[in-house]
């Protein structure tokens, strides 16, 4: 068992002009230490065996590649497969990365783990890995998300983690990440920061991608088995920071353009990109720097970061990771928007049609299928990353869908 090797980033952590290390100097030695430790672990059979053994025995990998017959028939076009990351332990793809990073933390002798979380899936996955390895775990979460995702807050506490609500700025994932970085700057010597997405300073975007690449690697093998070919015609995934999408895309992204499938990242368009209330960094952003990395980002003429808006806490982030930014600029991948309303329709569609309640994040990818699948021939194959299950969103969806249909409890 190995971890994949990719041509990017370069040694300075750059994907083209994106990426880098825009952080306080205090953290530079820690990032260099992390980079060296990760490079060593990546080629150490003992580390790799333990990582893959946990993925198999504890996470429950490989996750299924499920042919969605009903949805395929309903949309009347390309064959739709779902990569069932929702069936992983803890209910999302996030655990692939957290077991990798927490194993690395253990190897580096770090006893104190910190993490940021939006929807709470990364926080839960980090708390889970820390419970498994007996490490102290502190999770920063925006106050707004603590409210929206109370079930996950309880889960994290149950797993022994301390959840620290963040009340600064927009009180969401961006500010939770600021606070986690401030903690790391302060306690850098004994602390390992488990970052949950393909963002942040080098080597995080590369390391998180490598751990998540198991999604795309398994897809190749599974598709070969059922369809007789490794490469589908299109890959679809929702994108906030972009970890589930990179896990599916990266194993295909560096293929020769003549055989590369379409890679389609679905950004959260909130109330619509033109409304200004969205989280679509490629569609509505510019090249900027946040959380240590150069990437597509939402900010105003003065460089002030603009609040993202999305119905899904996990996509409610004003930037998209540097590798995605590179894919977007070089047209390796396409990035398309799906609004809150479209996501809710996707949420209902997959529930009714396949008996699978997706996370609201994932529902954005499902929503785009309604446009994509009918445009593609019936001999074509689409693989969608079903990045997480929707249990955590049921309360929030009930509140909103109930209102839409006039059956919900009124707030006024």
């Amino acid at each position, binding site marked *: 068992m190995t971890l994949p090797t990719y041509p990017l980033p370069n040694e*300075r952590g750059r994907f083209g002009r994106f990426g*880098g*290390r*825009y*952080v*306080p*100097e*205090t*953290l*530079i*030695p*820690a990032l260099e230490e992390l980079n060296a430790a990760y490079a060593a672990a990546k080629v150490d059979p003992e580390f790799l065996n333990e990582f893959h053994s946990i993925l198999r025995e504890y996470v429950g990998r490989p996750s299924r590649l499920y042919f969605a017959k009903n949805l395929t028939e309903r949309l009347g076009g390309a064959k739709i497969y779902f990569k069932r990351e929702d069936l992983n332990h803890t209910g999302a793809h996030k655990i692939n990365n957290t077991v990798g990073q927490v194993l690395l933390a253990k190897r580096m002798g770090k006893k104190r783990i910190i993490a940021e979380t939006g929807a709470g899936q990364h926080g839960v996955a980090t708390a889970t890995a820390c419970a498994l390895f007996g490490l102290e775990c502190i999770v920063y979460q925006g106050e707004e998300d603590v409210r929206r995702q109370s079930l996950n807050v309880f889960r994290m506490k149950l797993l022994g983690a301390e959840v620290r609500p963040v009340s*600064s*700025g927009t009180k969401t994932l*961006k*500010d939770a990440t*600021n606070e986690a*970085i*401030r903690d790391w*700057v*302060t*306690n*850098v*010597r004994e602390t390992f920061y488990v970052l949950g997405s393909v963002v942040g300073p080098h080597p995080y975007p590369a390391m998180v991608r490598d751990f998540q690449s198991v999604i795309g690697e398994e897809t190749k093998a599974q598709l070969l088995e059922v369809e007789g070919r490794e490469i589908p015609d299109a890959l679809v995934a929702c994108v906030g920071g972009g970890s589930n999408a990179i896990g599916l895309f990266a194993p295909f992204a560096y293929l020769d353009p003549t055989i590369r499938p379409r890679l389609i990242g679905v950004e959260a368009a909130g109330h619509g990109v033109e409304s200004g209330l969205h989280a679509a960094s490629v569609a509505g952003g*510019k*090249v*900027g*720097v*946040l*959380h*240590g990395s150069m990437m597509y*980002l939402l*900010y*105003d*003429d*003065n*460089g*002030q*970061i603009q609040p993202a808006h999305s119905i899904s806490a996990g996509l409610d982030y004003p930037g998209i990771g540097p590798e995605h930014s590179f894919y977007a600029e070089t047209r390796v991948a396409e990035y398309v928007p799906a609004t809150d309303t479209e996501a809710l329709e996707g949420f209902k569609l997959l529930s009714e049609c396949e008996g699978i309640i997706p996370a609201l994040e994932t529902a954005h990818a499902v929503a785009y299928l309604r446009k994509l699948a009918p445009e593609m021939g019936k001999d074509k194959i689409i693989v969608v990353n079903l990045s997480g299950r929707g249990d955590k969103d049921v309360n929030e969806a009930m509140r909103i869908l109930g209102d839409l249909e006039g059956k919900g409890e009124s707030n006024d």
Partner: protein
Amino acid sequence: MTTRIQEAFDHAKFENRAAFIGYLPAGYPTRDSFLEHAKVLLESADLLEIGLPYSDPLGDGPTIQRASEVSLLGGMTVEGTFEQARALRAITEKPLLIMTYYNPILATGEESFIASAVEAGVDGLILPDLPPDEADTLIPLANTAGLKLTFLLAPTSTADRIKLVTDNCTGFVYAVSVTGVTGARAIVPTEVPDLVSRIKAISDKPVAVGFGVADAKTAHGIAQVADGVVVGSVLVTMAGRGESLHAKAQEILEGCRR
């Protein structure tokens, strides 16, 4: 040509003390009161750092975070920050520095930001989230324009990093007193003497120490080893309450004596 920054450090050294560098965020709590507080501060301080308020100041503690929010809510902009500097330049010959995160520079355009800073009479920039490794376009532009750059060092900095950072600092070197963010602290930072001596072993540029300095006693401790003492959060708190900075600034200045 001797610069204002070098002169300020030379002058303090001549008086057998460390230079006192005060920090205030532009537009806080309002544009007018910033100018009033800055004028009072400049009666004692040798250099003034003007914070350019930013939405995501990840190197700053709660005091400066909140002040930045207030200032931004009050409509402060990049151009507004330069206006504040320009107004001070009209009444002082002391060095004015802008402390800013990188994204506002990127948004303005590096060349344009530097040109505006020079035009406003700013002497240098302090860059808390831009290590020299990522400043390969900014450094030559600033050097050509005569704008001085200060990068930061921290207790975790290795010999290689100290070499890289001091080589690229053209104003002075900013040593962070502790691993952590800005904010007044009661404790005396114990890692300062070691860090400053490691810097001084390979560089003869002035070294100023900041983060957590809030009183004369801490300033005095730092003044024994460093060329400058930076004081920020405690002044920001007082400015926010509308208190005069006169007595506090005098106290810090006294603390800077060796």
